[in-house]
């Protein structure tokens, strides 16, 4: 039985009038949000989150925040020796990395009880959708910035410790090493250094795999936008073979792997910008994602004003920066040099700009335009 949205809003307001009601709404809201987050964050599909408790974390004597210290595999090797010889010694030491916790919170939503009456959209639905969307986006934005920092750090190291411009011009001149970032085949042959995203080619994926596979790591998973994914459908019979080409022409690409790699697609093109494709190893070679407190939900009603907020406490870190590589399908520079002045087109937009509405209703752009009086 479905309850009309207006009735839901009324019941919501009534329930908020009691302590028990507020607790129940907070409890139900919290449960729902947590389940949805696992579905929608692409970061969680690449590095599965692990729940940790306070007991797993380390404090600081200087302030009241927490880290979890993660051990990294120590170096070791074997050697050939004669019957009389002996091996060299290694006083072992395993590197350790701190993974720091922080909070991601939704906005503090507020509305008066009276103004709620002006909505037929169920307010509970707004709570669920807005909170989930906001938190998932920030998780993915943080993740995307971290993986970009990782590939750029390795790229800088491979170029003698200097941030070296990587665009069509420097590739043609041979003045840059493509170690952890590689330009796509069509971007390399572009006429200018621009932000135009070229369609991904089959050799692009193969070459991206090689960036990892050539370093005693194994590529396992791709991350790309839906926009770039759509370009796969342009692959020809030479790429797909006639059977796949026939299938793709009817159903699109329906398989779970592409050239042996599983993949994660995202529609969040304001965070993962089109033209950027990352490849990852399995999570145990890559990094950590800890959840200290799953999504919590707060709701309160003071006089006639209802306030609600959701938040979670997490930590994420790319610990082995060599376990992620990047393919760029545009010809312009995306390093911090910003040699072509187009960097803003390739990196996640600011937090403040996330979640921009697609509709233009508030601008009066709807058709037919009907005015009430």
């Amino acid at each position: 039985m479905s309850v009309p949205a207006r009735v839901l809003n009324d019941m919501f307001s009534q329930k908020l009038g009691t302590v028990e009601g507020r607790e129940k709404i907070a409890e139900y809201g919290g449960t729902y949000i947590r389940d949805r987050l696992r579905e929608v964050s692409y970061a969680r599909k690449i590095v599965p989150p692990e729940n940790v408790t306070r007991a797993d974390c380390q404090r600081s004597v200087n302030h009241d925040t927490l880290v979890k210290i993660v051990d990294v595999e120590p170096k070791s090797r074997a050697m050939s020796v004669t019957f009389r010889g002996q091996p060299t010694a290694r006083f072992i030491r395993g590197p350790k990395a701190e993974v720091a916790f922080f909070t991601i919170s939704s906005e503090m939503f507020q509305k008066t009880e009276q103004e709620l009456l002006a909505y037929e959209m169920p307010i509970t639905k707004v709570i669920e959708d807005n909170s989930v969307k906001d938190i998932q986006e920030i998780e993915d934005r943080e993740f995307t910035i971290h993986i970009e920092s990782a590939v750029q750090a390795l790229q800088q190291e491979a170029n003698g410790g200097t941030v070296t411009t990587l665009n069509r011009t420097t590739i043609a001149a041979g003045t840059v090493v493509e170690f952890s970032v590689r330009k796509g085949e069509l971007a390399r042959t572009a006429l200018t250094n621009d932000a135009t995203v070229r369609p991904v080619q089959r050799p692009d994926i193969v070459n991206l795999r090689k960036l990892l596979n050539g370093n005693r790591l194994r590529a396992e998973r791709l991350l790309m936008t839906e926009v770039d994914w759509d370009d796969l459908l342009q692959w020809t019979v030479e790429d797909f073979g006639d059977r796949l080409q026939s299938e793709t022409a009817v159903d699109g690409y329906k398989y779970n792997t592409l050239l042996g790699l599983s993949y994660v697609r995202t529609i969040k093109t304001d965070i993962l910008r089109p033209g950027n494709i990352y490849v990852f190893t399995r999570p145990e070679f890559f990094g950590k994602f800890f959840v200290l407190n799953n999504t919590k939900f707060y709701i309160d009603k003071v006089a006639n004003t209802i306030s609600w907020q959701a938040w979670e406490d997490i930590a994420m870190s790319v610990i082995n920066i060599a376990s992620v590589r990047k393919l760029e399908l545009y010809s312009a520079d995306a390093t911090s040099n910003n040699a072509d002045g187009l960097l803003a087109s390739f990196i996640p937009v600011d937090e403040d700009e996330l979640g921009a509405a697609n509709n233009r209703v508030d601008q009066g752009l709807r058709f037919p335009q009907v005015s009430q009086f």
Partner: protein
Amino acid sequence: MDKISHAKIAEVLADAAATLRQVTQERDAAVEKLAALELRTDVEKLASSMIEKGISDAPKDVLIEQLEKAAQEGRLDRLRDAVNLVGPDMWSKLGHLTDDRRHPGGTSDLESFLAGGLGLARTAHKETDHMSTIDRINFEPVTDVLPIHRRDFPLADPTLVNPANPLGLIDGEWMTLNGSYQLVRAANIAAAGNAATVRSFPLWAERGRYDVQAIAGRKTPIFFLGVYEIDTRIFDAALVVGAGAAITTVMQPLKVASVNLGGKIVAGLVGHGGAGDANPIVGYVTRLPASNSNKLRFIQGWRS
């Protein structure tokens, strides 16, 4: 596949029960011994702690025996909690005298003497009694923080949250916003004595906080909007900047300028000069450092 004869199976079945019983007995005995060993270790630690803290002057073996009896009666955990609450020598010493005066730059008199400067350091110190020192915690609200809008902004220079950076930010420094909606220091710290000329906000994050370092863009919290009263160490009461004045009286207005605290220049509070001073006011003194453990207490209050 090798076949097992019925005779062998019967033999195994006959022996199995006896063997299992024997293994179980051995396991139970081992568990009992382990528990006894753990108890003995716990009791010995507790006895040592009691003697160390001066709670008991009984011989250690006697004390251990008493504690083992207490453990059998299930009182060991309560005793341990009680011992943990007691500080060292709490019973024998009523107090102790110490010179807890801080030395700017971490230089003690002994270090100064060894460096050939005995007397100079103390003299210098006396001259700067009105100057604060940077501590682990430098900015403590004394009013409710809930009504304050504590807003996180990314830093224009993310390296400033690195606790190893000599130019790194200290809690209680004063920040302002740049054109990119990012935080920058409100005063130029190239030298002491540069006044802030724009609206500024106090930073509420101790040096090296993990949560600040964890976030891309190094977002850092400030007290953005609202009224509050704060104890701060980030001030120089004697420094007179521009048309300002030394901090000498309660309710004196305050402004922001770069100040030198033990060799580190930060954006902190100095005295405002009143009507003749064109720099903005950020707060008013409510308690002078001399009567507030060398911390300046002030209330927020903006006037350009």
